């Protein structure tokens, strides 16, 4: 065909159309990415703004006198005496001394409410650690109640939240502010304690440890089983109706809503096998069952991506099927398998619904010390705090989300890093 002017013109016109379409497509893509990123940024910014407050707590400086009379302890070696002593009395004395004008009983009670009701135990710990302080007076920073914390933080922000405080308390707080005896300090409690009904004492450690134990179990169970299943299905299983059926059902399982796995755990692990509720073992089992399809599917994809030439090479060398898999296929597929496992773990870490069904939603104060201790996990802790009425739990909730996100980001980044690290070219 000769290239007449009309012919060229037609090509040019079609080119213009094509470029326009390409440009539009590119813009659509960029718009989608921008929208997605903006949404994520807004969520993150909101959580961070709300959550950072939880990493500091309000403390009040008080002159505490370690008075044996007030405590009523005669012998510090007697554990019973020490434990039943009125440690809060030291605190109350110090507060009365600080605010001598407060006389009425009801006002006094309000005054005592400035300090957290755990403050007495802090004083006890301090004195027991160093008995020479007995009889001395020292200025120490006392953890404030969560209402005080909320007030002080909002006051610092310029918009004081006074709803839950009396005039007497507000006056006392103003006096403390004027003398700089109220301050924000780093909130070590948040990272080192378990849950509590009192927001100022509530910490994330119980949930972190619970999550950690549950996940360890999930990994230990689902990774080897998943890989073994994937290798068998991919390399050894005969291709027949049965394996086809299994394959379809594994894919189905991956799409089953997670709460169903919780029900399964409740019915099988708890009701049938009588594993106690609320413990990491049962949580790990349920999450392992839930993660298994993901691990199997990603592992199979990783095995499939190993080039057939490597298989042929090893079989051609006289390797048995087993040797081919162990020496060649597995090392090459492992990075992909690990990535799949980590992504599965990340999903398990963020899972709440199935754990609600098996009792890991309980209010648990103690930090679990083993796989058989009652525990809760991070997302459930977030759920519990978000459900709590106290205002101070708002920032706790966001802070817990920050901790969870931190773990998730770390896991996903390590997945990427592992893949880069272990990936071998062929």
């Amino acid at each position, binding site marked *: 065909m000769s290239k007449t002017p009309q012919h060229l013109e037609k090509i040019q016109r079609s080119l213009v159309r094509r470029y326009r379409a390409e440009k539009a497509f590119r813009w659509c893509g960029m718009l989608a990415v921008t929208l997605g990123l903006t949404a994520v940024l807004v969520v993150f910014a909101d959580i961070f703004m709300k959550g950072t407050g939880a990493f500091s707590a309000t403390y009040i400086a008080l002159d505490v006198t370690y008075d044996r009379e007030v405590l009523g302890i005669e012998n510090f070696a007697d554990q019973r005496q020490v434990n039943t002593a009125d440690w809060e009395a030291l605190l109350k004395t110090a507060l009365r001394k600080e605010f001598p004008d407060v006389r009425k009983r009801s006002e006094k009670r309000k005054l005592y409410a400035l300090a957290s009701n755990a403050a007495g135990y802090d004083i006890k710990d301090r004195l027991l650690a160093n008995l020479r302080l007995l009889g001395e007076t020292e200025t120490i920073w006392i953890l404030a109640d969560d209402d005080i914390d909320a007030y002080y933080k909002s006051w610092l922000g310029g918009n004081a939240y006074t709803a839950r405080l009396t005039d007497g308390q507000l006056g006392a707080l103003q006096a403390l502010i004027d003398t700089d005896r109220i301050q924000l300090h780093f909130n070590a409690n948040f990272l080192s304690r378990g849950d509590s009904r009192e927001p100022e004492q509530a910490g994330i450690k119980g949930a972190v440890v619970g999550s950690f134990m549950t996940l360890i179990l999930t990994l230990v169970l689902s990774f080897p089983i998943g890989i073994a299943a994937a290798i068998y299905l991919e390399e050894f299983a*005969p*291709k027949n109706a049965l394996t086809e059926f299994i394959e379809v059902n594994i894919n189905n399982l991956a799409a089953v809503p997670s709460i169903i796995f919780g029900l399964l755990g409740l019915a099988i692990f708890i009701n049938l096998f009588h594993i106690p509720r609320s413990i990491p073992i049962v949580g790990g089992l349920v999450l392992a069952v839930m993660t298994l399809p993901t691990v199997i599917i990603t592992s199979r994809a990783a095995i499939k991506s190993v*080039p057939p*030439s*490597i*298989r*042929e*090479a*090893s*079989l*051609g*060398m*006289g*390797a*048995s099927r087993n*040797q081919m898999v162990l*020496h*060649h296929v597995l*090392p*090459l597929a492992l990075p992909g398998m690990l990535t799949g496992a980590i992504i599965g773990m990340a999903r398990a870490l963020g899972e709440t619904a199935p754990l609600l069904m098996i009792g890991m939603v309980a209010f648990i104060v103690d930090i679990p010390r083993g796989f058989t201790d009652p525990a809760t996990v991070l997302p459930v802790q977030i759920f519990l705090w978000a459900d709590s009425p106290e205002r101070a739990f708002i920032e706790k909730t966001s802070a817990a989300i920050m901790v969870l996100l931190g773990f998730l980001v770390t896991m996903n980044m390590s997945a990427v890093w592992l893949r880069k690290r272990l990936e*071998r*070219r*062929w």
Partner: protein
Amino acid sequence: MNTSTTLGVGTLPMSATQDVSGAGPVNIELTATQATVGSAQIPNAKMTVRNVNIFYGEKQAIYDVNVDIGKNQVIAMIGPSGCGKSTFLRSLNRMNDTIDSCRVEGDIRIDDENLYSPKLDVVELRARVGMVFQKPNPFPKSIYDNVAYGPKIHGLADTRVDLDEMVERSLRKAGLWDEVKDRLFQAGTGLSGGQQQRLCIARAIAVSPEVILMDEPCSALDPIATARIEELIEELSQNFTIAIVTHSMQQAARVSQRTAYFHLGRLIEVNPTEQVFTNPEHSLTESYITGRFG
């Protein structure tokens, strides 16, 4: 290439599309007229192939092949694409076992031992009949580990020193030693294409096989690398029996003593290489080597 009009091969009407499986009306006539011409059977054979038919599911890829593979000889298998020569080659060390739908019928023997008898261990067979593939496929391991792999899994080396010797000997035989002796522990995949293929040959000969099958070993290589491999094949043929599938007729002419011509799943002609290329017995062979199709 459309050859249907230009091809005047006796009474055989050629299918224009050269059916890969060898099915189709053409072959009925081929069967009727066809027995392999030339000297398919020779004395002193290393491997014997009798009445072999190979199927992929319902499709038949190889029809009734009879041929001997001579000891310490190179036999080249040529033929147009899809004629079944690779399939046939792979049946000689049972690599076809890995394909579920593939079925081999007939009798293949190495030193009078039946390849497909249940008594024969396929792992042992592959140690005796090594293979080099079309695309260089070194393991993603070091050069040393590539060559040492065979001896290791077959337990051929008793000591580390033995193994080192085997690796060096194999690499020397493959003409690769001087190029890689300083980087034995670097990745085999980092070598050039030709070097990789020689590494694969070294890997194959490390277990001292009796027969080496080569499936178009040079098709992914440039002419210089090809020349080196061809030299190597010639050297190796002093100690090994070699069966090579090739697309290049020049290569077949250069390296082999005997040539087998396959066409649509049938073995048309087997003769000394010189005769095949100068005075082919069958008109199909002639058409192919003179470049009228293929």
